[in-house]
């Protein structure tokens, strides 16, 4: 048996798993893709164990261990998914962005708008357009300061 054959099959399985993890939205489908990647690793372990004629059978024993760990990982993962479904009524990864940066959502112009709205009467009393541009600059400065402090906090 040429060792290239199992190695190539496992490389293809692994990249299919990578595609599934990156492209799927449903959490359970992502877990299935993770299982595919683990199986690719198992095939490699078995093939190289057979090739090297390991007297301790390290490759096959490690394959058994990986299978057990994969089962434990899947059990915990599904428990987390079910807890998520109980709390959020969704398992859609794209909608779970509580940990994302808030400014990712296109709110680049929106935070200034209420500020402008409440300062606009005063600016109008002082007269004309120039205060409003200064206002905008102050808004940008405040926003960049906020972003800098957030970066420092990270």
């Amino acid at each position, binding site marked *: *048996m*040429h*060792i*290239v*054959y199992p*190695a*190539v*099959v496992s*490389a*293809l*399985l*692994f*990249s*299919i*798993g*990578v*595609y*599934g993890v*990156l*492209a*799927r*939205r*449903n959490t*359970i*489908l992502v*877990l*299935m893709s993770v*299982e*595919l990647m683990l*199986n690719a690793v*198992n*095939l490699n372990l*078995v093939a190289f*164990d*057979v*090739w*090297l*004629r390991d007297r*301790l*059978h390290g490759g*096959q*024993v490690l*394959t*058994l*261990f990986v*299978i*057990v*760990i994969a*089962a*434990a990982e899947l*059990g*915990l993962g*599904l*428990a*987390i998914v*079910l*807890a998520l*479904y109980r709390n959020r009524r969704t*398992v859609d990864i*794209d909608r779970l962005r509580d940990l994302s940066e808030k400014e990712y959502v296109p709110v680049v112009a929106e935070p200034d708008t209420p500020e402008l709205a409440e300062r606009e009467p005063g600016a109008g009393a002082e007269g004309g357009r120039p205060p409003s541009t200064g206002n905008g600059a102050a808004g940008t400065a405040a926003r960049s300061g906020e972003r800098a402090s957030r970066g420092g906090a990270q």
Partner: protein
Amino acid sequence: MTAAVPSYLSPTVQEIVFLLLGAVAVGSALLVVTTRQLVHAALWLVVSFGALAGCYLVLTAEFVAWVQVLIYVGAVVVLLLFGIMLTRAPIGRAADLDSGNRIVAAVVALATAGVLVAVVVDGFRTAYTPLQPGGGAAGELGASVFRTWVLPFEALSVLLLAALIGAIVLSRTDIKPDDAPPTVESRGK
């Protein structure tokens, strides 16, 4: 390992069988990640894992093959089907199973496949071993597990216990945090 590497143009029966099983595994894995129906993905996963178990059998790893059938096909896929049912996933054809970055994912996966296949083919072109049956039988593997690898085996049993308790704690709904103020119902109990 041997000096004289047989030609790739005259494959043995074992290699042909292995390549057919590998093609089935890769093809059904592709269907797992591209199908539009959630339940069908789990069922194609069964086909893929079964073909992989056949690959292990051809590679003389019998015990690993049967463990693969028992745990993956028997337990893991059933667990996944339970997860699909408990999250009330749409049973029929669903349009929103794929995320918006499919193209990027396909590019990354193709790049991964290209790099891995190129490196593997370049590195192991001359690797060859004749297959001898009996190397992965349950007796030999059991002796190896319980003689050489007994400490990782025991550590793994503790890990399984921890995972079991963790899954129970995560999925129980009647556990409240301790610092929560006592509510009327809990005082009533």
